[in-house]
């Protein structure tokens, strides 16, 4: 699998049931190991749908998803894909499954067949990596929004993904946690695909930029984005 991309989409189509036209209409995309890609676009243009199709959570109505050059169709094939690709959901509360932090972060490693002691070790390392040492026995529902986000990230990183998909990772994060997130991503080996409206953040963590127009993935020039990002000192305001 020497030069096959880590994750690729070939002519992906997806239409929601009863929808007039498909959200994704022939999307081609490839993510190489270590690559940093940013994806932006208006609400409802299909960004989250694209990520869900990539992970096999939504079945593509056409085209195929390839992981390390091999097409994934069945649940078992997507299981292999999910071992290698981590997906951070937009809302942390959707992703935290257990009452205590360590149990939650160790959930993935345990699913991968690690022994409890090894899984706990992986979980501790992942927590330390995101800067949450000492949080092991904390109750998840008592955490702040930013801490919850970091716990979910640790849960994904504990599985050592080769690629990481982030869906609006900075939505409702305070500047401090946002800064920590940038720092964490800088020190990560994995390829990262970030979906965000937060131009500054996207610019900090990505080298290539795409948007979705009319159900197709369109590459945007990075320089243009630079200019754009600097032209608006308040990136959260619509333009």
């Amino acid at each position: 699998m020497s030069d096959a991309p880590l994750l690729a989409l070939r002519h992906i189509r997806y239409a929601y049931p009863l929808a007039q036209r498909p959200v994704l209409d022939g999307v081609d995309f490839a993510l190489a190991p270590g690559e940093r890609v940013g994806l932006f676009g208006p609400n409802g243009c299909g960004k989250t749908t694209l990520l869900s199709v990539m992970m096999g959570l939504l079945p593509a109505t056409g085209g195929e998803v390839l992981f390390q050059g091999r097409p994934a169709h069945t649940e078992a094939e997507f299981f292999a894909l999910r071992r290698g690709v981590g997906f951070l959901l937009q809302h942390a509360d959707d992703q935290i499954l257990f009452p205590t932090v360590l149990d939650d972060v160790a959930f993935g490693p345990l699913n991968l067949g690690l022994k409890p002691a090894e899984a706990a070790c992986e979980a501790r390392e992942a927590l330390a990596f995101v800067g949450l040492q000492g949080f092991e026995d904390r109750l998840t529902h008592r955490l702040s929004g930013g801490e919850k986000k970091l716990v979910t990230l640790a849960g994904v990183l504990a599985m050592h993904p080769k690629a990481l998909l982030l869906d609006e990772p900075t939505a409702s994060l305070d500047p401090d946690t946002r800064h920590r997130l940038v720092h964490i991503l800088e020190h990560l080996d994995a390829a990262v695909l970030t979906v965000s409206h937060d131009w500054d953040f996207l610019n900090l963590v990505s080298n290539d930029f795409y948007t979705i127009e009319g159900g197709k993935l369109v590459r945007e020039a990075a320089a243009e984005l630079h200019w754009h990002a600097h032209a608006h000192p308040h990136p959260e305001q619509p333009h």
Partner: protein
Amino acid sequence: MIDEPFASGSSFLHRADPRAKLTAAAALSCILAVSPSPAAPALALLAGLVCLAWAGLPKHSGRALWRRLLAVNGFVAFLWVFLPFSTPGETAAILGPFTATRQGLALAVLVTLKTNAIMCLFLALIATSDAASLGQAMHRLRVAPKLVFLFLFTYRFIHVIGDEQRRLFIAAKLRGFTPRTSLHTYKTLASLLAMVLVGAMRRADMTRQAMLLRCFHGSFGTLRSFRLGRGEYAFLTAAAFFAICLSALEVLHV
């Protein structure tokens, strides 16, 4: 919403392996539930109170403890209103048009003793562990995995769903909603509850996806390693001996 006021402490009952406590509490409750006479439940109530004191609950979280017992006995009070007058048997007292029977009163006493005995045992044995350890202990005791999941997820998500409900009610209040006895109120409340339900279903869907994303494949690992030490064995032996005594009392119909 579910705060665990009894789970923190340093007594033996707090430290003991929750599997031993679960087993003891479950066995004793079953024996008590089928008891036909008041002697065994009375003895168990005494034992329950001793366990409560042993766990140090009345001292450290007395208010919460009494509130729990009061809540249960609120239900029991209803039984006292109906049971004495609806059970056939010898007349014990006459209150206006109603006749209380000896058998009815005995039944009410029996139910009261059983309820409080089981409640005290559960508070002392089960409530002294946190929900996460209890779930894992149930898993180790080979309780059906679906039940364990249901238990752990209820604990995990009841706060989230509760928050959602509170947010919706605050949103309604902010737009001038005051509950009254009116059709508008009922419609609004029904709608808010429906929204909570829809939100919970969406959440359930997302949770399933989140589990798939982290390679869940149906079986359920756990980090905790429990250890049955000498203390646990002594405790289990004592509980077994006590269970045999209770059973003997019941069989002999004392």
